[in-house]
């Protein structure tokens, strides 16, 4: 299983519809400070079901919707679609390709879709349960976490193994 494509629209600083084609192996993302690199990583966490605004560096979930700039008005919707290859049936569904979509409206209404069919948040979480791809897995690592893993008390490090067990 691997991620093939991600489409962002109105998510954080990605006001324009943006398409990121992905391949197996290593994809490097570069650019000046504040240009939107970590926002891409936030988009992946969000579409996979992240419920904590703080984990996405915001105060409230609405902070993920494009908030405007000097030349643009704020948008009313954030949408991220993530397409995955499932030819080896890692995910327990009968499709060789799966697209997960998440939308959030300024009104607070949120939508999830699996291959364009509306579903619940719970369905997304269950889909990725135990695959190692998901919001509670260790699939994002930054310097803050390195301090946390190494400086925390031994009892706090158990979560790393329980995840893998």
């Amino acid at each position, binding site marked *: 299983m691997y991620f093939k494509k991600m489409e962002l629209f109105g998510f954080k600083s990605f006001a324009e519809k943006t398409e990121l084609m992905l391949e197996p192996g290593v994809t490097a*993302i570069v650019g000046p400070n504040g240009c939107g690199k970590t926002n891409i990583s936030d988009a992946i966490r969000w579409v996979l079901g992240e419920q904590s605004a703080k984990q996405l560096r915001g105060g409230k979930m609405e902070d993920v919707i494009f908030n405007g700039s000097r030349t643009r008005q704020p948008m009313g919707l954030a949408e991220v679609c993530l397409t995955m290859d499932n030819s080896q049936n890692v995910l327990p569904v009968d499709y060789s390709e799966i697209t997960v979509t998440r939308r959030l409206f300024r009104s607070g209404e949120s939508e999830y879709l699996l291959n364009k069919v509306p579903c619940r948040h719970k369905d997304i979480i269950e889909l990725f349960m135990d695959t190692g791809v998901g919001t509670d897995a260790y699939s994002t690592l930054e310097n803050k976490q*390195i301090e946390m893993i190494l400086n925390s008390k031994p009892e706090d490090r158990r979560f790393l193994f329980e995840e893998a067990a």
Partner: protein
Amino acid sequence: SREYFESTFKQVQQNFSSLFKQLFEGGEAEMFLTNPDDLLETGVDINVQPPGKKLTNITLLSGGEKALTAIAILFAIFMVKPSPFCVLDEIDAPLDDSNLNRFNRMLLEFSEKTQFIMITHNKKSMEMANVLYGVTMEEFGVSKLVSVKFRSAVAA
């Protein structure tokens, strides 16, 4: 379950020791359970010995040594349960050139089972990637993606 935790732990423990030696080109590292009799509550602690140094607690390690040790832990877990996907956000920043090279070599090996997105400012790390994207903000406040290089993993 208890047995499962124990067997996973033993595998990660072994992987961690060997990956640490690879990343540091020597030295020793050991992971152990603080309370092995109670598998449901026990903590996990780590003693490390960078090459030529005395065994120390991980809090005395330097910034770069800590980053490399944490990478060894992450990859030790991936060997037991590969995650299909992982984002690394500037974790190569604290590394000096020789550690950076060893890290990038290991990353390439693990990228056969795990798909990585690596956010970096390091030119050496950019060179080893299969695909390279640049993000710009030509229009203030609005991110735009520019694809810089596409070398298919197969051809490499």
